[in-house]
Structures are given as C-alpha cells and as structure tokens.
C-alpha cells in the first residue's frame, strides 16, 4: 500500500498551507486547478498515467454544497467496465484521499455513494482502476467551504457514546440473482484533528475510520480505506451480488485501533 505509506507527510504539508489561506484558492484558474490535480495525482498514484474518461465513469455531486461537512457524492461506472478499485480524491482538502475502495468477487461495482467533507472550492476526482491495471478518471468542481475547519454543533460526548453502531438498509433485487443495493451507515465522529473539546479546550486528536470491509460468507464485497475527508458517520451505498443467504459482515477499524463488527441478515428479504 504505497498510498498509505506516504500519505501522512503529504497531508500534513498540505494542511499547513491550506489552513493558512482558507480562501486563497476559491477563484483560482482552471489551469491552476489542473496543475494541482497533476501534483496530487502523481503523489497518490505514483506517477501512473490517468486517462480522463467520462464515458466509463461519472461523478455526481451538488455544484454548491448545502453542508460542507456532509457532501453527498455518487459515482456510476459503465456496466461493462471491469473495475477493481475506486479512489475518491478531494484535490484541495487537507487530506485529499477521501477513500479507496477495492472490490471483491461479490461486488457489483457500478454504483457507489458516500459522503465527504469539503474544506474549500475544489475539484473532486473519482479514479477507477480497471482489470488491466489502467486508471480512468472523472471530476466535478464543487463550491463549498469550511467542511473540515469549521465544525458545527456536534456533541462529542454523544458521538463517542454511539461510536461503532451501524445501520444497514437493503433493497430487494429486481429478480433473483440480480444485484442488491445496501445503504451502510457507521456511527463514528471521524475526528479530523481540527475540532476542539469544549471542556478541555484542547484539539481533539484525529480519530477516523481507516478500514471498512464488507463480506458475505467470507467472500469480499469491498474493502475501503478511509481518511479524515469522509464525513462524520461514514455512509456507503454499494451494490453486490449475494452468493447465498449468509449474512453480510461489516468490519470497521479506526485509527485509534478500535474495531467494530456487525452482521446483517439478507436471507429474510423477499426476492
């Protein structure tokens, strides 16, 4: 995992620059944004070439965020494209890589939704790795500010009391053997290190969801690596092809080395 090895240093440098200049980039030119993406992409994907291809994948996000701490994004991938991994990059965030999904044999990786923090006007990129190893991307420009550095009224005590709780909502397949859609919601404050505890008045150390794996009967649907750019209470909507009637197992590990597990039955769903 080259990505996780060099990300922290990169994230810290970026954070220092961006926090000092919260709005300096708001009106920057298209050329400057392209240059930014070039640098970010090179760091994340080790200089591997990335082809923009809006026919293979699409990214939907509101052009202007209603809540910059929770921006719903939706990625769709052409049904015939063989996708093995998907990375969501928020170019101008303190930690640009929001999440990397690696799909397993039970995944139907053609539609995925999640919720991210957006700290300032930025391009968001989705990068898909295809079976042949090539990388294709698409992007959206989004207007938002303060998603990381201006937290709202979340009660930290309440958030920690609920940590690790999960909810899953499954929709019935169109026909037996067809893919099912699951909405997974994980209670986790995903502290990004920029929030202050009202009692101690010290910055709450970053504590965020690092890994999520969803399996059925031991076979993988996906594994996700997360970071501080995922919203509080990470949410993932994904499609999968159930292999049988075994429950879905969700395993979550966070950066404080806590782990949470929950099983969700799929067998009682009408088909």
């Amino acid at each position, binding site marked *: 995992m080259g990505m996780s090895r060099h990300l922290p240093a990169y994230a810290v440098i970026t954070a220092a620059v961006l926090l000092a200049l919260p709005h300096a980039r708001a009106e920057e030119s298209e050329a400057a944004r392209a240059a930014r993406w070039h640098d970010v992409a090179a760091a994340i994907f080790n200089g591997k070439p990335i082809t923009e291809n809006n026919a293979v994948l699409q990214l939907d996000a509101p052009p202007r965020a209603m809540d910059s701490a929770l921006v719903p994004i939706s990625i769709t991938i052409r049904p015939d494209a063989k996708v093995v991994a998907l990375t969501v990059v928020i170019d101008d965030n303190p930690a640009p890589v929001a999440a990397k999904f690696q799909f397993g044999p039970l995944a139907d990786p053609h539609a995925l939704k999640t919720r991210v923090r957006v700290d300032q006007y930025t391009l968001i990129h989705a990068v898909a790795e295809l079976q042949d190893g090539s990388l294709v991307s698409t992007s959206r420009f989004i207007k938002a500010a303060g998603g990381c550095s201006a937290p709202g009224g979340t009660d930290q005590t309440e958030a920690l009391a609920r940590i690790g709780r999960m909810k899953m909502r499954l929709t019935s397949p169109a026909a037996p053997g067809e893919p099912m859609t699951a909405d997974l919601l994980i*209670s986790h404050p995903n502290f990004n290190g920029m929030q*202050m505890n*009202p009692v101690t008045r010290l910055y709450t150390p970053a504590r965020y969801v690092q890994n999520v794996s969803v399996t059925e009967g031991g076979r993988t649907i996906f594994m996700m690596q997360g970071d501080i750019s995922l919203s509080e209470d990470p949410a993932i909507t994904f499609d999968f092809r159930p292999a049988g009637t075994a429950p879905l197992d969700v395993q979550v590990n966070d950066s404080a080395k806590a782990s949470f597990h929950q099983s969700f039955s799929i067998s009682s769903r009408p088909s």
Partner: protein
Amino acid sequence: MGKSFNAVISCLGAALACGAFLCAAPAGANPMPFDMAQAAPGDFVRVGACDEATAANLDGIANIGFIVGHDGVAVIDPGGSLADGNRLRATIQADTTLPIRYVIMTHAHPDHVFGGAAFLPDHPVYVGHWRLPAALANRATYDHARLAGLLGAARTGMPVAPTLLVHDTLALDLGGRILRLRAFPPAHTDTDLAVLDTGSGTLWAGDLLFVGRVPALDGSVTGWLRALAVLGAMPASRAIPGHGPAIVPWPAGAADEKRYLEALVKDIRADLAAGEPIDKIAATAGTSERQLWALFDSYNGHNVIVATKELQWE
C-alpha cells in the same frame, strides 16, 4: 399563513431600510449611532439587515442591542464585526452615561459576536454559554478569514471570549433590574443562551428565535424544539428574535419557527423510513415552507442535512 407572509415582508423591508442607512454610514473614527427600536422600556434593539453579510451592511445582519438598568448597561450581542460593534457602542454612549457592565453573547455565530472587541475599552464582563470559549476558538480564524474577505481585516475584528460562563442559569443585576440567563443543550447551535429581562418581561431569545428569516440549524433540531418549549414557559410577554422584527408577542411569536422545525422533522423521518438518499431528502424536506420565509433556499438544504445527521440514528 397571512402572518408569516407579513413577517417576510417586514424582514425584507428592514433589509432595504438598513441597507440604505448603512451605505450612508462613514467607516472612519466616529461611528454613526444606530437608529434603535425601543422594544420595551429600557430594551433597545438594532434590527439587523435581512441579508447575508456584505461590505455594505458590515455583517450587521443580526438583531443586537442593550438593556439599561439603574446602575449599568448590558449589551446583548456585540454585533457582526468590529465596525458593527463600534456603532452599537456609539449608540449606547449617545443614550446614557451609565457604564457598560456586561457584554452577553447569545451564541458563537459571527454575526452576533465579531463586534466584541469594540467594548474592550469599557472593561465589561463578557458572558456566554460554557461551551462558547471552545466554539469561538474553533471557529474564529475561519470566520475571520471569511468576513475579512468581505469587509477588510480592519473592520472585521475578532470576538472576545467570555470569562463569565453560564452552565445552566445565572442572574445578573443591572441595579434593580435582574437579567436571568439560561444556557441550553444543543439547539440552534451548541452555545445558545437566552436572556430574560425581568424588568420589562422581555425575552432576548438570540437565534433560538427566527421570525421572517428562515431559521438556520447548526445544532440539534429536536433540541431546538425542546428549547422552544422551555422558552415558551418563561414569564415574558414579548420576545426579541435574533433575526426578524425588533419585537414579537410571546410565546405566540414562536409559532412559525415551531411549525417549520416540526415540518423538517416530519418530512425527514418519513424520507428516512422510505429509504430515500440524503441528497433527495435535502432537495425536498421542508419545502412546503418555501413561500413563508426569506432566504429559504440559502438555508433549508443545509438545515435538512444537519437534521438528517441527527434523525438517522433514531
């Protein structure tokens, strides 16, 4: 319904009047006093512009004001910028020679607190919710950068952290005039403080009460509804909203806000039960209220997302 519509009109009317007034104000060393509304004997209110912060309105978009007792003055919300606070201070100085004893902050939002430093020469006690120091420390750099981009750094100023903190309730005496302060659990924000002026039976509700301008949710929607129930039981016959006209009858003046918040909760719960995705919920919940509020489209979607974060765990 007719009442709500009138409230929107009066909110917009106030924006136009204030806009013209503020445009004529000099930015120099002699701040121009505000034209204040006397909400009750001894309770004076500057009605905020029904708009977003702009260079012309100096972020004077919230209702701010002061209470005059026998021995001293309490400021309730020092204003949206240093320039806004300087004008409030000039207004008080033109009205009375009594000392400014307290600067009370109703919550952490910049349109209410950035004028704080204007009153430092008066050496008042700064008062706020027990969570306010952390909230200001968390937000101030970010809020300052955003406001300074509009007003310039010199006019923007910085908030002053409170040193007298309210954990539950607190009484302040202005000399024969008792102010009863109450801190709330998360509602509009997580730093909400309301002030009951027992001298006139007037409730300074801060942003726990919006009239005409759509409420902005930055805390807990169910907590806000609980706070409204507590406020409604207070012995006040009128209230000063954080945004809206200078004065409304109490508790009747909270009816529109209560209806809006209840509509949000009802719509979001129904959508969550139906498995609607959050972007769809944000586009539809609460929209039956669109015609009844100023600035609805600027805030409703945000309110829905904040409320959904909370209600999704029920």
